[in-house]
């Protein structure tokens, strides 16, 4: 033992440290430190030049003070001076100071870099290592700029000492991580890979960290490392515990290097070379076998090192996910660890199993451990282990065990640590929804969740239960009954009141027949909670009350009494007061019919991704990925929509081979029009325009969409795996579409499923029916699907096609817009010139016309233009327009509800600008239907106003509401209010529901007008 270690001469430092330790209070410590700082400052500033030793001592004191948590604003220069000392210890302290107190003072950085440069070129290995350590510790961009070129050379030079190589490798790694752009790959890269063969184990250990990082970023450049790594690993695994001398750690040969090799292999897919793969599998088997051998030492270090390798090997097996035999063995091994007496191993086994659960080969094997995991959840003393157990239960859950797992998680929630409750609640909510076969179970579970852990039930959870109850009419009665019972508890959580208020307000009538839950009983029960609730909940309850008035006229008097009371109608909260006033007014003025329309049952919510799942993903970050993968497998119960069923149709490959389709008129610029689908009226305009509306609906691939506006057949989508061809025909308001899914690979797709959904309003505008397809698509095969479409009324959005399948274990998910646009239902109409112009003049009001002027970017070819216009579905009328340059078209859009006549003129001019004008006329009662849609979607207040006026005349109240809504969003409050006023001045024509929605959304802002 070097005696020097305890007193290397810096006695002053030792005295100072013990002084500090003897300080009785923080104040005394600060006083002592300030005294010392003053002393050091005076020494540094003093006339007498300090010798290196004193400088070292003072710099070291400053460092100590800094590490105690005090600021240091001087001494950097002295530290830099130490760097150029010839004495090792002085240099060492100088470097330590620089490493700990990095300062981006440019003047200093230059000096530091200079000193480092000198040491690097000194050829003194100890100095070189000090310099490299400093670069690695600081790792700043300036240092990367200065040394990123030099270090690779040191690393691969033949005469570099091993210890310097080790430092150089890790130093380079650090610079690469901090500034990858400055570390240039070059001829040194291939030589770095060969460091895997170095005789010195230390060099390999250090170099492999660098190689792993570089491989993960540039796998192709480094792929030769796979076979080198496998042979190195195989040599270590098969060596006796004494072969590697000091690199054997507690009888385990080179555990660090083994783990790093296994980690490196995880950057790559399984080796293609059969011999290499065989050797690797042999290694993995040996590692698994060794786990069963009796330990060579009782020391925990021995078992830790051995199991570290084992877990890393299991990670690699899971990463490959292709060797069922190894996966099952891994799972069994982890199963043993689940019951191990070492807490650490139980923890890691639970964690590892989570990833195993998402592999289809081992999912079943993982499930066999369910009892052990449940037991862990109940009995583990350590909360972090319990949390891993909960994670694993979540990962292993499927339809077969959902009820059991959800019940266990619920009962655990009662005692769970506060830190993990919210996450647990989300998980229970997700599992309950995902695997709900019977919805009464779902409702029970969520209500239990609110009862047990109401504080941790986020908004998303209770929103979701309401969405589901509203969308599923088979569960509404049960939900009303259960929530009514839950509300009877003397102390019930506010979230329960929210759910109760909403559900009874909508479906209280379903249980009103029972005298124990008669309308008045229901109301009194809800109202008994009112005073304990926060403002938003009270507001919700007020809405429930007005719904009660509609559901149960006999409660009207009681409720009006409540609304009229001072505590409501004069509530200091504006929102509550306003609701009370409005609802009271509404209930006293409106006739029963109006009331029934306004307070109609809420329409079904659009199906979309569960907001809870989104929240969990956000919360968990990368950890939730496995869940998402699984999600694809099991989805469909709640969100699948009702449009599946029937036999799968597998067709011969008779899809039309498409010609590469040109853009409409060749006018559109390259930027794909995406997102907010063009409205019916503006579709005409948008497809002709240069750039479409911007907002993209994320995740939906609609590159191919616009190409199909003017044609019916072609390739809708294509990637490396899948090609989707389309063939469609339309007659009147009906259409039939054939989709051809072609598997371009030689591997079969499993769990292949497609869904067609109509988002939002589209549900009521288009009737879309599909047949399900066979879940298996063989390699090279093609599957056909037929979709029947009925246009009920005009529409804006396009239906969405969602395709899911597994290819080689990975879930593929593709979303596309189906090219169903309003013009598909055009029926061409022939007419003579006189006829055309007479009609054109009839449609003379500004809002009956849509006009767009745009540049033809590719010039104009008559034949192409004609083809496009015909493709649009209209009739191209020859010899109608007096100007022979112009194109004139006519057609009738056929929907079930009405027919809309449409006239179109395309007026090219010499400057290659094109103007389209379309005028439309409905033959039934609604003027300007299409146009109005378009205008509503503009943001111009005057256009909106016109639209609003016209709509009021024609009693198209839906539009009025939309106009108000739009105006509101555009920030035009006055117009919004005006539209509303118009709306209110008309007797209820179509539906009040949109108004009601609007009212709910914007009610805080419209009180002033309503009172006028």
């Amino acid at each position: 033992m070097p005696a020097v270690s305890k007193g290397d001469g810096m006695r002053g430092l030792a005295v100072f440290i013990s002084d500090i330790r003897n300080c009785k209070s923080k104040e005394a410590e600060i006083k002592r430190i300030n005294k010392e700082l003053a002393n050091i400052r005076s020494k540094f500033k003093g006339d007498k030049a300090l010798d290196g030793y004193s400088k070292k001592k003072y710099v070291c004191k400053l460092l100590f003070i800094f590490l105690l948590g005090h600021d240091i604003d001087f001494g950097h220069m002295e530290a830099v001076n130490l760097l150029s000392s010839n004495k090792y210890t002085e240099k060492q302290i100088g470097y330590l100071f620089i490493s700990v107190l990095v300062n981006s003072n440019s003047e200093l950085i230059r000096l530091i870099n200079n000193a480092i440069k000198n040491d690097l070129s000194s050829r003194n290995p100890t100095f070189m290592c000090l310099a490299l350590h400093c670069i690695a510790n600081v790792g700043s961009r300036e240092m990367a700029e200065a040394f990123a070129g030099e270090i690779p050379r040191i690393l691969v030079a033949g005469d570099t000492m091993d210890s310097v190589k080790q430092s150089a490798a890790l130093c380079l790694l650090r610079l690469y991580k901090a500034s990858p752009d400055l570390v240039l790959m070059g001829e040194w890269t291939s030589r770095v890979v060969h460091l895997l063969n170095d005789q010195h184990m230390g060099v390999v250990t250090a170099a492999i960290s660098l190689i792993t990082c570089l491989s993960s970023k540039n796998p192709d450049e480094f792929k030769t490392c796979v076979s080198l790594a496998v042979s190195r690993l195989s040599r270590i695994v098969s060596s006796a515990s004494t072969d590697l001398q000091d690199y054997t750690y507690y009888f385990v040969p080179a555990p660090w290097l083994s783990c790093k090799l296994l980690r490196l292999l995880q950057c790559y897919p399984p080796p293609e070379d059969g011999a290499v793969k065989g050797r690797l599998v042999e290694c993995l088997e040996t590692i698994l076998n060794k786990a069963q051998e009796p330990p060579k030492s009782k020391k925990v270090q021995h078992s830790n090192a051995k199991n570290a390798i084992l877990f890393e090997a299991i990670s690699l097996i899971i990463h490959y996910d292709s060797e069922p035999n190894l996966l099952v063995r891994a799972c069994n091994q982890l199963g043993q660890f689940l019951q191990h007496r070492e807490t650490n191993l139980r923890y890691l086994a639970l964690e590892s199993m989570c990833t195993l659960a998402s592999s289809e080969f081992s999912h079943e094997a993982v499930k066999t451990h369910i009892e052990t995991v449940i037991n862990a959840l109940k009995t583990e003393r350590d909360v972090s282990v319990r949390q891993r157990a909960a994670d694993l239960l979540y990962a292993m859950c499927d339809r077969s065990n959902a009820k059991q797992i959800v019940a266990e998680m619920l009962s655990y929630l009662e005692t769970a640590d506060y830190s993990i409750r919210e996450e647990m609640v989300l998980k229970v909510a997700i599992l309950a929804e995902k695997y709900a076969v019977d919805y009464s179970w779902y409702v029970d579970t969520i209500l239990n969740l609110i009862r047990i852990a109401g504080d941790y039930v986020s908004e998303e959870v209770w929103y979701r239960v309401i969405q589901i109850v509203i969308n599923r009419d088979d569960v509404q009665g049960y939900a009303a009954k259960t929530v009514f019972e839950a509300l009877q508890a003397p102390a019930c959580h506010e979230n329960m009141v929210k759910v109760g208020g909403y559900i009874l307000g909508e479906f209280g009538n379903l249980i009103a027949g029972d005298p124990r839950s008669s309308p008045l009983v229901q109301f009194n029960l809800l109202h008994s909670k009112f005073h304990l609730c926060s403002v938003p909940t009270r507001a919700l309850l007020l809405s429930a009350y007005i719904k009660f008035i509609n559901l149960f006229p006999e409660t009207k008097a009681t409720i009006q009494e409540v609304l009229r009371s001072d505590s409501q109608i004069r509530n200091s909260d504006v929102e509550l007061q306003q609701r009370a006033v409005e609802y009271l007014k509404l209930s006293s003025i409106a006739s029963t019919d109006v009331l029934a329309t306004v307070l109609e049952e809420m329409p079904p919510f659009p199906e979309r991704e569960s907001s809870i799942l989104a929240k969990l993903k956000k919360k968990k970050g990368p950890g939730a990925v496995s869940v998402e993968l699984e999600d694809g497998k099991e989805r469909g119960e709640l969100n699948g929509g009702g449009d599946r069923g029937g036999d799968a149709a597998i067709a011969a490959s008779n899809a039309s081979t498409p010609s590469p389709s040109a853009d409409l008129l060749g006018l559109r610029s390259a930027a794909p029009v995406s997102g907010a689908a063009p409205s019916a009226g503006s579709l005409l305009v948008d497809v002709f325009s240069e750039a479409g509306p911007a907002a993209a609906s994320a995740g939906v691939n609609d590159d191919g969409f616009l190409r199909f506006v003017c044609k019916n057949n072609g390739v809708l989508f294509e990637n490396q795996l899948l090609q989707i061809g389309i063939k469609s025909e339309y007659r009147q308001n009906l259409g039939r579409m054939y989709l051809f899914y072609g598997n371009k690979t030689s591997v079969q797709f499993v769990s292949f499923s497609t869904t067609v959904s109509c988002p939002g309003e589209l549900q009521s505008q288009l009737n879309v029916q599909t047949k399900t397809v066979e879940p298996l698509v063989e390699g090279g095969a093609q599957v056909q699907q037929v979709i029947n479409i009925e246009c009920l009324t005009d529409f804006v959005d396009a239906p969405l096609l969602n395709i899911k399948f597994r290819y080689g274990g990975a879930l593929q998910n593709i979303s596309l817009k189906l090219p169903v646009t309003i013009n598909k239902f055009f029926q061409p109409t022939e007419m003579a010139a006189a006829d055309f112009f007479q009609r054109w003049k009839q449609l003379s009001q500004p809002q009956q016309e849509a006009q767009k002027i745009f540049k033809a970017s590719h010039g104009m070819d008559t034949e192409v233009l004609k083809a496009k216009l015909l493709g649009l579905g209209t009739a191209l009328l020859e010899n109608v327009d007096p100007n022979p340059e112009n194109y004139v078209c006519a057609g009738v859009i056929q929907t079930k509800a009405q027919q809309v006549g449409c006239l179109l003129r395309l007026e090219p001019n010499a400057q290659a600008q094109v103007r389209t004008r379309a005028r439309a006329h409905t033959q039934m009662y609604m003027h300007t239907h299409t146009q109005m849609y378009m205008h509503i979607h503009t943001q111009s207040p005057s256009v909106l106003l016109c639209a609003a006026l016209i709509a009021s005349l024609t009693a198209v109240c839906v539009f009025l509401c939309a106009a108000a809504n739009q105006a509101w969003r555009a920030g035009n409050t006055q117009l919004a209010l005006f539209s509303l006023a118009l709306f209110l001045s008309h007797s209820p024509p179509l539906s009040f529901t949109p108004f009601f929605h609007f009212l709910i959304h914007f009610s805080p802002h419209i009180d002033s007008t309503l009172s006028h």
Partner: protein
Amino acid sequence: MMHFLLLFSRQGKLRLQKWFTPVPEREKKKIVRDMTTMVLGRKPRSCNFLHWKDLKIVYKKYASLYFCCGLDAEENELLALEVLHRYVELLDKYFGNVCELDIIFNFEKAYFILDEFLLGGEVQETSKQVLSRSIEASDMLQEAEIDNSDYDLELGWP
């Protein structure tokens, strides 16, 4: 890779802090606070691993000192435990029956030894023999220097 290594006492006094990635001072203080409260709050015989933000935390107590490190999510926890153990062994070999006081009074040595063992958050060398040799070699250099220095000047108050 390892992001940081902290040594602190049962009272939460920080004895050594090593940051392998650039962290602003303010953030460092927050991390130290979080680690000490989290680790010191653990019951005995709990497992040595924790999740904290995106990092895995591995800690172990040796006598009165806690060794605690933060790792990337893909790192191996068991191996990290042995990294801590090897560091303790190195300190022990150097100081001979190392105790907290050795690390307080010779903090710079603790940093030097760590630099030989870990660099940029990765293991540089695992062999105890090789490591001790290079640490001792630098001490020999030091000893030679001390013989030449005017040691006497150091007696008394600087």
